[in-house]
């Protein structure tokens, strides 16, 4: 019997291997879908082993790109310098206006006795790799669990929302971009305050879902995070509406959004590691007031 089974295995070894590997792949898919911690550990381990290769390649690519562009760029440097100086002057002026506005807003907040203030902690990270396929949209960053990055954390850039952390290793993480088909985010139309879901559509585009037909949405409207889902604080810019469709019948209208952050040219990102809701200074002051000292007991009473 043993001899017969040995010959069977030898004769059909290729078929057995194919079946074994396919079963392993399917088991892996199933475990990933159930988000089991064993798969996360394996992912983190391989992420840690492979990412240094990506980091070296990125460094090499950047150096080579710099060398290639240097002779062409030197002629443009003067013009760029003038442009940048003008931009700095404009930004300084804008900055002082915004400071004034922030102070006014703070005064009004105190007057209205708003109970909460949001404080956000961020970690800066460098993009060291991109998605190897055309269908999915993700980037690899050089910050991981040792830097406080966890699965599901929001990732943003100065221009706008980038995505959320999908996989983590001790020193590296994979970020799912908002344009990926698997990405969905709760959003808010900044002008009308209408609620919507921002879903990825690939190719640097998102789709607005469940946007009520009654909402007066126009091309150019900005969509921000609602703060209701995941780790995204309220008010982060997601993108700008480029197309609105009210054709046909139904409760909802369709709209297309282009992310404000250029996701095809990302180099640095910010991972929001903590969103803390702090009590306002007036509330803090009330809470910090010393209690009335207990009356001193007199002798003889």
């Amino acid at each position, binding site marked *: 019997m043993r001899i017969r089974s040995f010959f069977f295995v030898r004769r059909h*070894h290729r078929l057995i291997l194919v079946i074994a*590997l396919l079963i392993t792949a399917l088991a892996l898919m199933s475990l990933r879908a159930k988000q089991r911690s064993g798969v996360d550990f394996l992912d983190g381990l391989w992420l840690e082993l492979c990412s240094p290769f990506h980091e070296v*390649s990125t460094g090499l690519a950047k150096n080579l790109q710099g060398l290639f562009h240097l002779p062409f760029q030197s002629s443009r440097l003067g013009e760029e310098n003038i442009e940048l100086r003008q931009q700095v002057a404009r930004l300084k002026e804008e900055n002082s206006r915004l400071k004034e506005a922030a102070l006014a807003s703070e005064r009004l907040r105190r007057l209205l006795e708003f109970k909460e203030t949001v404080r956000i902690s961020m970690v800066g990270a460098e993009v060291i790799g991109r998605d*190897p396929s*055309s*269908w999915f*949209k993700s980037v690899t960053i050089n910050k991981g669990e040792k830097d406080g990055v966890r699965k599901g954390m929001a990732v943003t850039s100065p221009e706008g929302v980038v995505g959320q952390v999908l996989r983590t290793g001790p020193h590296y993480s994979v970020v799912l971009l908002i344009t990926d088909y698997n990405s969905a985010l709760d959003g808010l139309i900044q002008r009308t305050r209408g609620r919507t879901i921002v879903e990825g559509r690939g190719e640097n585009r998102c789709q607005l879902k469940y946007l009520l037909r009654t909402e007066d949405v126009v091309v150019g409207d900005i969509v921000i995070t609602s703060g209701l889902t995941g780790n995204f604080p309220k008010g982060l810019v997601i993108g700008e509406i480029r197309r609105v469709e009210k054709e046909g019948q139904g409760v909802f209208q369709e709209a297309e959004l282009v992310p404000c952050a250029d996701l095809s040219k990302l180099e640095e990102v910010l991972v929001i590691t903590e969103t803390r809701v702090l009590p306002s200074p007036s509330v803090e002051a009330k809470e910090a007031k010393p209690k009335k000292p207990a009356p001193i007991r007199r002798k003889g009473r």
Partner: protein
Amino acid sequence: MKHFGFFLILGIVLLSLQVVWGKFLPFPPARPDFTLAFTLYLGFTSSSFIGGSLAFALGYLTDLFTGNVFGFYALTRPLLFYGVQLYRSRFNLDGFVFQSLLGWVTAFLEGCFVVFLMMTLNATTVPNLYSKLFRLLLPQSVATGIVAPFVFILVNRTSAFVFYRSKVGLKR
């Protein structure tokens, strides 16, 4: 084991090239799939066990760096490997045109299969699917077809160099 380790490192290097150098291309969708070409090479040259395990490992690593939540490439790459291995005696590996054509066709078929899996398992609707197949998948598969013969030559020469050198070392 030595072959497995060497080919795995080579696969990781090719994956790094694919991940990093893609963004410097003037037309991003035309990003060649180096690891797919490498899997095809393994299908022609490696044994069932080593090649199959490597194809699976490379598929798993590709999944790791994509936004692919389930992990479709760990399933498609071993299938591709065994498909090539099954028919390898019927093809002429040395032909540049054949290698290119094989790279192109397999990349296109794999892409279609991944989209099918994505739509079936993930309940995702891909709007304008057919136009996207042509705009995204066709340039990538053509680019993979173009680079496939070069990957074959590169891997062939590198492995010949490494293993020839190690044999010489043993003789001494």
